């Protein structure tokens, strides 16, 4: 699979990058800093293997959010005073547009940082990276299982619906939906409970309880430069939040 510069970074470096963007953006609450960080966040996808997919996801997520923000803020922002645009008797205020713009910039900075991490890091790599930093195996299992169980449960729910429809279950009215709860939820819950016991056996048979350090098939490369970068990013976040608390940073 093709891999870009950002894709190859250690998962903790990527995560620290996204975390720092969020901390500084919301900690500083400073518009120029927010705009600088937004530019950085929006430039990050250029360094991934598939930037078009990432920009597509950003567009799909933030366009509706942006439109909603501008409409809601334009109409309801309490500081609205100077009207700038009027459509069919509805006035949009300058203060509202400005506030909506800042809010959107913050959300986009936070969101694009997180999206870059999520779309370039497999859950297995992330949990492996955390496990290598001392996270207990039980937590690793819970994290991975939670990610895996969603498609499994969805497939099982679909299979249960098919099985009950084959027995005459029709879901139309509210009453029929209530009646359908037990035949649909019952097998899902019972199945999940039975699975827990059998899955525990499966894990034992796969030596999950072994106390020795497991062999990792994938090698996650870390470097001194990345460790320094992580520390610097976190220190920068702490510093800016500190300045903000001390009142040395204007809004």
């Amino acid at each position, binding site marked *: 699979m093709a891999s870009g510069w950002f894709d190859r970074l250690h998962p903790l470096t990527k995560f620290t990058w996204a975390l720092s963007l969020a901390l500084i953006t919301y900690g500083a609450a400073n518009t120029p800093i927010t705009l600088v960080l937004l530019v950085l966040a929006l430039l990050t996808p250029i360094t991934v293997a598939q930037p078009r997919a990432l920009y597509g996801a950003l567009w799909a997520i933030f366009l509706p959010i942006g439109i909603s923000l501008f409409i809601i803020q334009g109409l309801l922002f309490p500081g609205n005073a100077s009207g700038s645009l009027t459509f069919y008797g509805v006035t949009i205020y300058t203060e509202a547009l400005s506030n909506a713009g800042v809010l959107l910039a913050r959300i986009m900075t936070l969101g694009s940082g997180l999206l870059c991490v999520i779309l370039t890091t497999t859950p297995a790599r992330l949990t492996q990276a955390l496990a290598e930093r001392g996270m207990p195996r039980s937590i690793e299992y819970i994290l991975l299982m939670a990610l895996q169980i969603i498609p499994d449960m969805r497939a099982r729910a679909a*299979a249960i619906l*098919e099985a009950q429809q084959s*027995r005459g*279950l029709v879901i139309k009215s509210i009453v029929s939906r209530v009646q359908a709860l037990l035949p649909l939820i019952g097998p899902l819950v*019972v199945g999940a409970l039975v699975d827990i016991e*059998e899955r525990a056996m499966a894990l*034992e048979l796969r030596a999950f309880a072994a106390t020795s350090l497991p062999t990792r098939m994938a090698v996650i490369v870390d470097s001194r430069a990345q460790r320094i970068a992580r520390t610097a990013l976190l220190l920068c976040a702490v510093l800016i939040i500190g300045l903000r608390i001390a009142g040395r940073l204007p809004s």
Partner: protein
Amino acid sequence: MTTPIISVDQLSFNYRRQAKPAIANVSFTLNPGSVTAIIGKAEAGKSTLCALLAGFMPQFFRGKTNGSLQVAGRDPLNSSIIEMLPHVTMVTSQASTQISGVCFSVAEEVGFALQNLSFPIAEITQRVQRAMELMEITHLAERSPFQLSGGQQQRLVIAAALALSPPVLILDEPTAQLDPPAVAALGVTLRNLAHDGQTIVVAEHHLDWVGAYADRILLLRDGQLIADDAPRAILADESRADGRPYCVRISHYAQRHGVWLAEHPTAITPAELSAGIDTTAAVAEVTRPLSTAPATSTILDIENVSFTYPNGVAVLHGVNLHIAQGARIALLGRNGAGKSTLLRHFNGLLRPQQGRVKLHGRDIKTIAPGALAAQASIVFQDVRNQLFAATIRAEVAFGPSMLKLSATEVTRRVDTALAICGLTALADTHPYDVPVAQRRLVATAAIMALESDLIALDEPTAGLDEANITQLVVAMNHASEHERAVVLVSHDLDFCAAHTDRVVLIQAGVVAIDARWDELTSTQLSLLQHEVGLPLGQATCVDRALAPQSALARLLCQPLALR
């Protein structure tokens, strides 16, 4: 003298709160490098014995144990599973629940135990590759384990056990979800492993497979070891085996009809069956009767149906199929051929993108699936997706009550369905309190109570012993007597050949064969053999180069119900 690798001495096990022991005073020893089959009816104690050998007690199943047990020089009763794992591992009967849930690909899942046991990467890679090749899942290496079919998941969990390469490998019903070519391949693999020194223990209902690949059989009945002998001594002796392999049945049938070579013993393998047939014997002409009277009207019309899933996978390509009243059809095909997709069109669970599906001449595209239950219904393979009620009676009554029938009619239908599925005495029991095999009959009864004009059964014999299969046949016959059509989707070819009139082969999304069993041509038989294998009668005819329409071929291909 060889030192036994497994020694069991007067072993008994009582599950907590159970009056009767699941295993009672069982003693035997097994030498290394052997394939031993544990056979017996449902609830005979096969799975319990396997679990004891693998060290599951007391870690997972609480109860009282007596006697002693040694596996590879260790005592499983006083060792944890992790301590036993380098010496013995087990594949349990439900493949889907043996997937760890933490691996994102098949290859990772196969090597997961090796990673946890800190094997070097090079060795893990080599073992994973070998295990995937043995179970023919190399092409699935990058797929998510949760995206596999039941048969593929079964191959995966067996591959994961093979990768560990323990001295003792225990498999509980390993063939339940495999297609016939995979079943045969597994037999050869296990024999090769035994030849290399591994000890294989298999609990299995599939007696023909046991006859072909086991060195020795342990026959359990009510938790007791009734017989410990060579396969022939047990399987060919009707008084000892709890169930008869199809090979033995056909041998006896051939003996009765004078087409068996006297010097040949009763066959317990397909090769012996083929060799024992006397192709020179004079045979009276026989005609295979239909299970029911000729059809009077069509129930289902599938017309030029094509279907593509949202992910772009095209599964059906212009399928035409017509099912008449009282028909009994075996719907066969490889995994992924499109059988399940086609089945879901029968009652509107899936809608064709092209073509039409008609029930009693009416296009069903705008009708909700649930509203079609009186006309067409399906018993799915995984019955856990169906069962939810507090009693078997309530479970069976759910369908009829959905049809808005009168209370009297619901009661009549429930009583009938319980009776034909042999569940009357268990009506007030919780569905999960009966053995797994009987749960399948509960699911079948729940569908039978709908009295649909067309009943489809997906892998109905999986995990059933002979007594339960006999009960299933009673239910199917009852449906036929009432001119209901029955469609079987099954890898159990002998069951299909015995209890259906017509075979429909789906090959890559099209109907490749649609013919009566006794009218299959040589070309069709070759295609069927290539795609899914042949029932024993037909396989013997092909092996002995008998013309499909010859008197001897017709005799050998008679449905077992008539033999």
